[in-house]
């Protein structure tokens, strides 16, 4: 089923290549849906959309067969993104919740995040194959979280090199056993050691990847969303793939450092990108405008927690009160906010006064 869908897409891609390039700005989603969204939520978006988008959405309609499907949307020439869903990882979605995709050069394809399950990894690989014959040379893992790396195994073959932050291997090593157990229980997905593929190329500072007439700049950041966040900048289209350094609609999840994250956002905000790709949210975002809600959430949380700590309020009191004004602005707020508060409180109480 998916195979037919993809070959159909290839046809369209060929015939509408020029149209696609022209329609890209329209494809940038401005949907800020505070409620749980689905890959098709834009179908109900009242904003006018070009006809092309409508046809893409038709093609992308899920067959609801229970089988993993991939809808790779072109957001810029040679840049394709599959949109995740704003849900907790569970047995139904099998952890396939993040935005993932690829960038294609003349000589090489670079996959950016491999998916939230081995099956989604295979579907992504199939989806890429249906769109291009250019070989996959790189799989870039933007960070250690399961929804971004569990498809790794599907890409493991001669000629494919895995790329990650220099702290990714250590993070995978420290978390793998724990993650495997969690996947089996929460997702009903059986993982083994083989599903975790450590990076062949470790990025410390910056690294350039040449895809053939297309250069990607990878930057390994200091601790922010996690301690192993990697971003990808495509010079050709000025696309900044931020992965989970940018959450939209889905509440940002702090698993590294609140202070560090704000610092990194300050830095990447200055990058003159035409668009950014969030790890959770629409397939493409205006940059840096669309970082505003996340920056607001994180800064307000920090301001309130600093005040609470100064007033001698306890972590329990902070969890009950800090940052509550953001509640209606985000999906999964109740699921992740209390934990964000606890994590951030434990970090901020060590700040020097």
């Amino acid at each position, binding site marked *: 089923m998916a195979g037919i869908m993809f070959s159909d897409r290839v046809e369209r891609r060929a015939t509408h290549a020029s149209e696609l390039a022209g329609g890209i700005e329209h494809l940038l989603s401005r949907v800020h849906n505070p409620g749980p969204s689905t890959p098709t939520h834009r179908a109900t978006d009242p904003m006018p959309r070009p006809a092309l988008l409508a046809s893409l959405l038709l093609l992308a309609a899920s067959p609801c067969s229970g089988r993993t499907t991939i809808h790779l949307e072109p957001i810029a020439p040679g840049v394709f993104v599959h949109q995740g869903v704003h849900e907790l990882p569970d047995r139904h979605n099998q952890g396939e919740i993040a935005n993932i995709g690829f960038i294609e050069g003349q000589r090489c394809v670079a996959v950016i995040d491999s998916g939230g399950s081995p099956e989604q990894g295979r579907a992504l690989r199939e989806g890429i194959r249906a769109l291009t014959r250019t070989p996959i040379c790189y799989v870039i893992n933007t960070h250690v979280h399961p929804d971004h790396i569990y498809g790794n195994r599907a890409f493991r073959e001669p000629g494919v090199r895995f790329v990650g932050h220099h702290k990714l291997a250590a993070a995978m090593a420290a978390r793998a056993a724990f993650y495997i157990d969690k996947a089996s*229980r929460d997702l009903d997905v059986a993982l083994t050691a083989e599903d975790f593929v450590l990076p062949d190329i470790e990025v410390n500072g910056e690294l350039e990847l040449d895809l053939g007439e297309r250069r990607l700049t990878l930057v390994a950041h200091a601790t922010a969303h996690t301690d192993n966040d990697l971003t990808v900048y495509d010079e050709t289209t000025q696309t900044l793939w931020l992965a989970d350094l940018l959450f939209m609609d889905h509440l940002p999840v702090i698993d590294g450092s609140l202070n560090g994250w704000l610092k990194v956002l300050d830095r990447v905000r200055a990058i003159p990108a035409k668009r950014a790709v969030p790890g959770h949210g629409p397939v493409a975002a205006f940059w840096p405008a669309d970082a505003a809600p996340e920056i607001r959430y994180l800064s307000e949380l920090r301001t309130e927690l600093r005040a609470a700590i100064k007033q001698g309020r306890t972590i329990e009191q902070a969890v009950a009160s800090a940052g509550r004004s953001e509640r209606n602005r985000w999906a999964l707020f109740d699921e992740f906010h209390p934990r964000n508060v606890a994590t951030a409180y434990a970090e901020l109480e060590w700040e020097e006064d």
Partner: protein
Amino acid sequence: MHRRPLVFSSLLLAIALLSPSLGSGASDMPDETAWVNGLRAKFIGEKAIEEGNDVIELSAPYRAEDPALVPLQITSRIPQTPERFIRKITLVIDNNPVPFGASFEFTPDSGKADIAMRVRVNSYSYVRAIAETNDGKVHMAKAFVKASGGCSAPIGGDLEAAMARLGKMKFKMDGERLTPQQPNLTQLLISHPNITGLQMNQISRMVQPAHYVEEVKVSFNDRPVMTAQTDIAISADPNFRFYFVPQGQGELKAEIRDNLGGRYSTTQTLTP
């Protein structure tokens, strides 16, 4: 091209890092099995237990947002007087790999035998605060906590930063100045990763060796106000909130020792 395959031993590690969703299974319901079948005998012996909130109260979240950071507050219902006081409070987490969480010794100089801390809870479990008064009586308060994976959860965040400040400590006083002859609330923050020894590293294929605070001694002008024996259930960066009664100005001092022999101390001069 070389790739390092990960090799796993079949250590059964428990659950739940990023997702607050919690486990299903046999242990979802409050369950006294572990307590009845051994823990009671181990921690209390044959003595009678007075259950209830007359002497001691325990508050804990029913559902823990973060199993590695579960805030507990133990509140005493009697003042610490030389005639009658709480001598010791033992914290037991029934279903943890090491059920003994900590024990805290108090004196009349403590003023109030309250203690708050953050702990790791590894599976759905009763948490118990067992108080022994100076007359030898045992009082117990308990709370059921739904959490899982607290002990085996990988050390998240920024371990490097945490290791860099290992042993750093500070007191945070509740007010600007001391109030003599009255219980004064203070908080002791200890920077220590408190590694449980249950977190497995897949590269070394080894369990990260346990490295945790074993003893905490707090005194004011050399008179002990709170002494604790602690174990791996105490969260990373141990944090204790408690009272002491100063007679006047003086030095509040904390000394800690970890299981690898590391010793650290801090002193703060306080004035009324």
